[in-house]
């Protein structure tokens, strides 16, 4: 599926240009490019998470994009093939394809604005493609919101969310072992109304964020729920990453309660401001 047009608007607050378009080879990807009204001093690519988490962080990422554009940074948002507003089916979504998509998003920002991205933002599972991008850009800034350290955990949390929904009578109760057996047999399972393919599941197996060391980069890790980030921080520090943490104080039940997200909360605005402060500060130093 291809789209033929681009929607543009100047953001009422900062006057930054918001340009929404599909890009890349088919199946095409949805993207939103935010171009500052004044001088552009750098570029940022935001890598979302997937499935329910994509919806949950959608507005937060938009707020960050607008904040960064207001401060002179060109920003590229995008959705992976087979997820969000992008084209493609569930079968197109897998970790290698997410990384390829992130690289295409980086090129899209370069082509559209003439600016090479120097900062990358990863949200939850999006921390994998964001970190992979940062590995290729020496001295880049990398900010991770509530990163998934062990990709297997991402699925386990979805299964746990599914079990909670089943307790409430909203979905069918199934044991983890039965779900996995069905995934093998049928190639797909359903978790809280989301389709998870064996291709996606297999692509996450054994993947550890600490293995993607963006040597020479400066990283900010923002756990949302006092999660233990030391396995990542220790390995990255030893690998030459200047890494810091920021307490998110923004607890999320990632796979549940999409409706409950308060998009206007002061906490969220504070998180966005502090995150933007850090990115702008790193680029200026």
């Amino acid at each position, binding site marked *: *599926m291809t789209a033929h*047009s681009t929607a*543009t*608007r100047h953001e009422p607050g900062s006057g930054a240009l918001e340009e*929404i378009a599909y890009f890349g080879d088919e199946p095409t990807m949805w993207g939103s490019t935010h171009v500052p009204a004044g001088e552009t001093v750098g570029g940022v690519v935001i890598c979302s998470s997937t499935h329910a988490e994509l919806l949950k962080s959608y507005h937060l990422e938009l707020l960050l994009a607008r904040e960064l554009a207001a401060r002179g940074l060109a920003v590229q948002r995008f959705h992976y093939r087979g997820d969000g507003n992008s*084209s493609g*089916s569930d079968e197109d979504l897998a970790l290698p394809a997410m990384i390829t998509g992130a690289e295409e998003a980086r090129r899209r920002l370069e082509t559209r604005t003439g600016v090479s991205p120097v900062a990358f933002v990863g949200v939850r599972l999006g921390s994998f493609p964001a970190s992979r991008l940062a590995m290729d850009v020496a001295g880049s800034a990398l900010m991770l919101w509530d990163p998934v350290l062990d990709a297997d955990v991402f699925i386990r949390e979805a299964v746990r969310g599914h079990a909670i929904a089943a*307790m409430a009578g909203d979905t*069918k109760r199934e044991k983890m072992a039965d779900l996995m057996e069905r995934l093998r047999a049928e190639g797909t399972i359903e978790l809280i*109304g989301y389709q998870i393919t064996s291709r996606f599941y297999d692509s996450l197996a054994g993947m550890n964020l600490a293995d993607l060391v963006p040597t020479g980069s400066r990283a900010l890790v923002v756990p949302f729920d006092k999660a233990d980030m030391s396995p990542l921080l220790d390995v990255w520090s030893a690998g030459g990453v200047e890494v810091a943490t920021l307490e998110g104080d923004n607890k999320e039940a990632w796979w549940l309660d999409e409706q409950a997200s308060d998009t206007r909360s002061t906490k969220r605005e504070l998180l966005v401001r502090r995150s933007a402060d850090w990115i702008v500060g790193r680029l200026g130093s």
Partner: protein
Amino acid sequence: MGTTEPMIDHIGTESIDVPVFFPEPEKQFFGFVSMPRTSPPSTTGVILLSGSFGGTTTLGRNRMWLKMARSLADRGYPVLRFDYAGIGYSVGELVCCDLDRPALSELAAGFDVLADHGAERFIVVGTCYGSRTALEGTVGDPRIAAVHLLVPPVRDVTKGQEDAEHLAEYVGAASLAKKAITPQNLRKLVTNKQSRRAARRVLSMKARSVVGRGPRRAGSGEAPQGRSARDASLKFQRPLRALLEGGVPVRLLFGDADPFFTEFQEARAGRLGEFLDQHHDLVDVEIVSGKVRGFLTVSAQDASIRSVVDWVERQGG
């Protein structure tokens, strides 16, 4: 949900999505027009009105609205889905999802978007808040070909009240306890003042229900007591009646386990049933197995998409 039909798949292969800011020149709202690749497209356009869902109202759980839009566009119909004001890329005051303040500005501007893409008549599909918008925003418009309401609330409820009343009325005490002891809910009860208030509201309503001074006991099978408690809201009835009197076909889809279906059945026993019967040739009530509201299962999503595609094919020709 029980269905033996295959899952909806391979959607969007015959269509394109066009992002749009609208209306001109303000560009206040954002949405997507899904268009058939083949030309010319149908002169019947479809508008999809979701309930609230996370940071955007264009997608829904498991991309249901996107899949619905592309399924329809694959069949030749131009389809618009968009973010309500204050959500996603749409700017303005956030009123979603107050049933008393339907998204009439967005819908009116949406008709113009589809008209720009060749549509001359419209089919409007809505769920929850979107169903109220679909009802109020289509009355008296001669361009409306049909309306489809997915699990519409027939009574007036606010978001918190809605959940509390449903829990108190339709969920037994044991099930309520089971719901409360999930780790997520326990954490909310400890950390969130709003959740504690909601829990108190549910418990209070449940207590009154059990001693017979409030909503009926879950599963008691008691007959509705009085019009005000059980009849459909006038804000639901009036526009629905006006649409039917104007000759507009309306389909309503419920799951047989949806609390809204129970309310609909109760209301149908009163005045709502009278005028639905009067216009039986224009009304189609489709019931599927299980729960549809919230689209919490892929089968509920597929049943909704199939129902809408079927209705549009019937009415949009």
